[in-house]
């Protein structure tokens, strides 16, 4: 049987294209909320570098996500990147000025970096936002410990 090479190549190309399309249809990207959940799990497991990658993905599609900025700030802080953390917490608080987590964590970052007065500023904001809530208590404790030299 005489094989038409051109026809064979065309058939192969078609097969590859169909397979690729099929693969594209069956492999869907995770939604931002799924990615956020993955990031939260990574943070819980102290995989801060991996969490940062996921959170950056979330923020690409949802730049107004204060929770994502807050968690990204937390991850940066845990890795010792305090300048990045400060910007990221600031972003979270620009979007949501009463974000309890960001107020708490930014205050804790201030304690870690010796800025007790700034930490107290965050504590005041937490007090007016949520009274004696869990975040207020945590930051209050961190400030007391910092003031006692227990960083």
């Amino acid at each position, binding site marked *: 049987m005489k094989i038409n090479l051109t026809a064979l190549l065309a058939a192969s190309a078609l097969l590859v294209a169909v397979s690729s399309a099929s693969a594209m249809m069956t492999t869907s990207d995770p939604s931002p909320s799924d990615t956020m959940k993955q990031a939260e799990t990574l943070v819980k497991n102290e995989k801060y570098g991996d969490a940062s990658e996921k959170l950056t993905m979330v923020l690409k599609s949802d730049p107004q996500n204060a929770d994502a900025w807050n968690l990204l700030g937390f991850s940066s802080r845990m890795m010792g990147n305090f300048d990045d953390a400060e910007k990221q917490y600031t972003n979270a608080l620009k979007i949501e000025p009463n974000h309890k987590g960001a107020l708490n964590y930014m205050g804790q970052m201030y304690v870690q970096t*010796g800025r007790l007065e700034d930490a107290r500023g965050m504590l005041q904001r937490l007090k007016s936002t949520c009274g004696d809530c869990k975040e207020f208590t945590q930051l209050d404790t961190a400030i007391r410990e910092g003031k006692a*030299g227990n*960083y």
Partner: protein
Amino acid sequence: MKSISTVSWAKPGTLRFLGAGLLGFALMFAADVASAGPHQRPDHPAAPAFAFNPTTPAKTKLGCRLFFDHRLAKANDTSCASCHDPAHGWTDTRRKSRGALDVAEARRTQTVLGAGFVPKLGWSGGIDALEGFVLAPIARAHEMAQDLDALVVELSSSGDYSRGLEAAFGSSEVTVGRISQALAAFVRTLVPGVAPFDRWQAGDQNAVSDSAKEGFDLFTGKAGCAACHTGWRFTGDAFHDIGLEAGSDIGRAVHEPNNPLARYAFKTPTLRDVALRPPYMHDGSKSDLMDVVDHYVQPKPARESLSPLLSSPVLSDREKLNLVDFLLTLTSVTDHTFKNCLPERKQK
């Protein structure tokens, strides 16, 4: 100490015989790049600073004055320099540090030389930012026992720092944050100076003795010291259990409780200016450098946390002396009688 293989970067050209072709060219290129050596001190090392606290001359000057000011202690009797004495490599000569309560702590005072380069500060690495690190001993009850708010009031009322604060921060207000930032800026300037080892690495064959050169070969080879004492500061800034006597101080495990290697693990110290800093180890248990070398030669206790990088190399007495001779070449030739920055007393 585990024996590690090292590129013979101390002998430029060693790899050139490997031949022509692309592979040979690539290897030669790598050898040339590496000829400065992983332990070579950079020409102008500068400790990195955070954007929120850039290092400026005015801030550094202010921090220097604070560093030598006894009022930082509650009893006005101790400054940072009381324990971090420049004449002793920015530490003291005690086996264990002693603070306001005059009680021996579990650990020796660490040097602050090169602290600006250290990512996790303290023997167990509990502090990530130098700005936090400099406040801890001031405030801790066992050290300077100062109430930070009271310190702000005391320094404000004296007015002694008004001009320095103006110059550094733009206003004369005293705050805990400014005290911390000025101290951190000063500590970042405490960079190890040029040592005979550096002059040898730069090509001066007479800068160190033949014994020291042999010691360096041992350090990077058979003795395996360079497995942990890496880079130009001769520390990888990691934490290792090196088999010292285990007490109640569990070291890094406080921060990494689930890591079996963190138990009894302490920060690998820099070896820059090491000759100025006896006694050695986190617990001050080794009185001189020969004691240190002997420790690594001796068998270690069998425990899970023991660093896998440790071995017990067999070294002759001569080789041990070679190692000590090499370690002595890491001490800089700068003036170690650092003049403090406190202004002279006003004449009445």
